């Protein structure tokens, strides 16, 4: 029997870690490149081998629940392009696969979303665009792509039910790929097993005098993180003139306090 409490504690820790492997996984994480986002995540970045949901932009100021405009939403393409590139640059092959014609970005969005504004034309050659004809084919394609090791999958995640997200999460775990799903904002109420869920909004005009596109990103849910970390604080991202998306959240004193809680 172990009598040394420190050794016992260590042993318990290892046991717990071993049990948690299935969920949290042995997969690494990658930094989003935005300090504000990395700080709210318990592991300091988005996890590989998991899916992450990004709820897209509501085009209207009006009630988003009204049926007339339910179908119209805009995926946060520049944010996804930035993340895809961050993720791809941390992996050897660096291939990214965009599934669903609705979320296909333009060549400029793909090449200009540089970490440091640097263009990379070879990135286009490492980007595949998939156009599944039906929703069932889309789900199948996302599943197949996630099972391919070492790719970043960015997909149109509209009208996925809980079982579908479970299927994709399992696919991502087995393949080790990163799944970034763009989902319409009105589906935020749908249950999902995604590792993280984020909502993206156009930054309110009153708060910032914007002359560039700005978005407010909020962590809605994060698996394995206490809910107080996700309680409605948002990060403001801006697309600068060089074409890259940067964190422009006001430096509030509160942040350091939160970082202390997180660590």
């Amino acid at each position, binding site marked *: 029997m172990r009598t040394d409490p420190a050794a016992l504690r260590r042993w318990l820790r290892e046991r717990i870690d071993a049990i948690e492997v299935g969920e949290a996984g042995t997969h690494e994480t990658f930094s989003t490149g935005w300090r504000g986002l990395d700080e709210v995540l318990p592991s300091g970045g988005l996890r590989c081998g998991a899916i992450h949901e990004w709820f897209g932009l509501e085009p209207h100021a009006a009630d988003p629940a009204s049926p007339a405009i339910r179908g119209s939403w*805009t995926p946060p393409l520049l944010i996804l392009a930035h993340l895809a590139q961050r993720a791809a640059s941390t992996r050897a092959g660096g291939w990214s696969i965009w599934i669903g014609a609705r979320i296909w970005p*333009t060549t400029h969005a793909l090449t200009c979303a540089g970490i440091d504004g640097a263009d990379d034309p070879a990135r286009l050659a490492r980007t595949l*665009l998939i*156009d*599944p004809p039906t929703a069932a084919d889309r789900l199948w394609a996302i599943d197949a792509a996630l099972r*391919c*090791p070492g790719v970043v999958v960015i997909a149109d995640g509209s009208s996925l039910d809980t079982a579908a997200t479970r299927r994709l999460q399992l696919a991502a775990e087995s393949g080790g790929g990163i799944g970034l799903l763009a989902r319409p904002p009105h589906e935020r109420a749908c249950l999902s097993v995604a590792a993280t869920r984020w909502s993206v909004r*156009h930054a309110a*005009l009153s708060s910032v005098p914007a002359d560039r596109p700005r978005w407010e990103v909020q962590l809605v849910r994060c698996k394995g993180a206490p809910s107080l970390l996700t309680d409605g604080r948002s990060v403001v991202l801006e697309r600068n003139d060089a074409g890259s998306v940067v964190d422009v959240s006001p430096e509030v004193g509160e942040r350091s306090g939160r970082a202390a809680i997180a660590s």
Partner: protein
Amino acid sequence: MHAVILSRIDHQREVVGSCCAMAARAGVFPGMTVAHARALLPPARTHVESLDDALAERSLRRFAAWMIRFVPTVAVDPPDGLWLDATGCERLYGGIDRLAARILGAVGRLGITARLAGAPTWGAAWALARYTDDPSPLPPELSELRSVLSPMPVAALRIDEAMRDKLHRIGIERIGHLLALPRSALADRYGEMLLLRLDQALGQAVESIMPIRPRTPVMAERMLDGPTDRVEAIEMITRELVGQIAAQLTERECGCRRLEVTLFRSDLDPLTFAVQTARPTRDARHLWTLVRPNLESAHLGFGVEGVRVRAHALARLLHRQEAAWEVGSDGGASADSGELGKLVDTLTARLGTGRVLRLRPVESHLPERAFDLETVTGIEDRPRSSGPALIDADRPSLLFRRPIPINAMFLVPDGPITRVNIGADTPRIVACIGPERIEPEWWRGYGGYGGCGGGGGYGGYEGHGTAARDYFKAQTETGRWLWIFREVRHEGTSARWFLHGEWA
């Protein structure tokens, strides 16, 4: 009929490399200038083409492979000869002359002029086929060779031109002259090669040929006792055959990029379908996942009597430990291009071609033309970064396939836009940057839009292609950044507004 001349460049002159029989009758011979040859032939019925040595040799090899239907051992003798080892074959045809007649007949039907001679040695056959007026397929006896070869010119010994000139200079014209000379003197003055050729022709030295080996196709087939329309049975058989193909490919250190499956259906034409892969592969499981959907949708008719699977487009693929590496000890952190190739194949097989695409920049300042969607057919290990550079202007991240007609509202005429009307939504515009004038590409002609690339189909409203556009970046009250444009029209008509993209 045309006279055909194959030309080559010799000392900066275009000379005849070889010519057809018709041209030869008119007096053309290899080595004369093409201009001279043209003068001898009717100009309208003369075809001159440059001689491609590599192509000629490939053709000769193919011809040799075709010749295997007559004799089992065939070797090529570039540039224009074939060696056929007919030993024992004459019995099958009822005599060597009958065999020769069949060969010459078949070759003639292919449109090839051939001379065929039989001899007990390769060297003598070479000489007889080229330097007798009417070569005979009946081989002379070995003992007769001396007398048969003696009157022939020394060139018949397969010696080069320099050697021939040297012999001519001292008056040796015929093989008989050489035979009269003492051997030791010949070897001292002209080297061993001349003696070797002489001995080979006379059968005093051994000569071997290198027969071509035809590549047997990688194929597996199974014929059934009777027709069956049970899909499971056919699937099982096909799967097994695909496995056999994979084993054959492994043996040859090859992979295939195309697999053809043929179903022999009773009372119907055989049904053939093919699957393509992005990279050469011999992974049976992967090939099966590609074949299976085709099989499921195949029309079996009254039943299938047999299945044949054949691999095409073979490429060398070295042995490697396949399955063990695919899982990856590091959780698959590195993107394996082989895995990616399989993914592309799987996606293409289920979704269809034209659904797996890649963006390629195109040199155009029209936003809907500035890219092209190309179908991905293969995955390179090292993707090229080709194509023109992108336009160095601010472009949105989302571009609508077809510009959406909108209404723009102003407080004062020609003043700033205050509101836009997009469908049911009328957001207020709080900031507007522009205009950026984009002129139409007049060199493409009017109405030349639509159908170019996948960006395509910029149809949908008339008058396009003739009007320049003024683009604005407009920010709505909700914080959206829209890319809208106004068609610049001539006087009279009112401007029309469109929404073309968004920074999302």
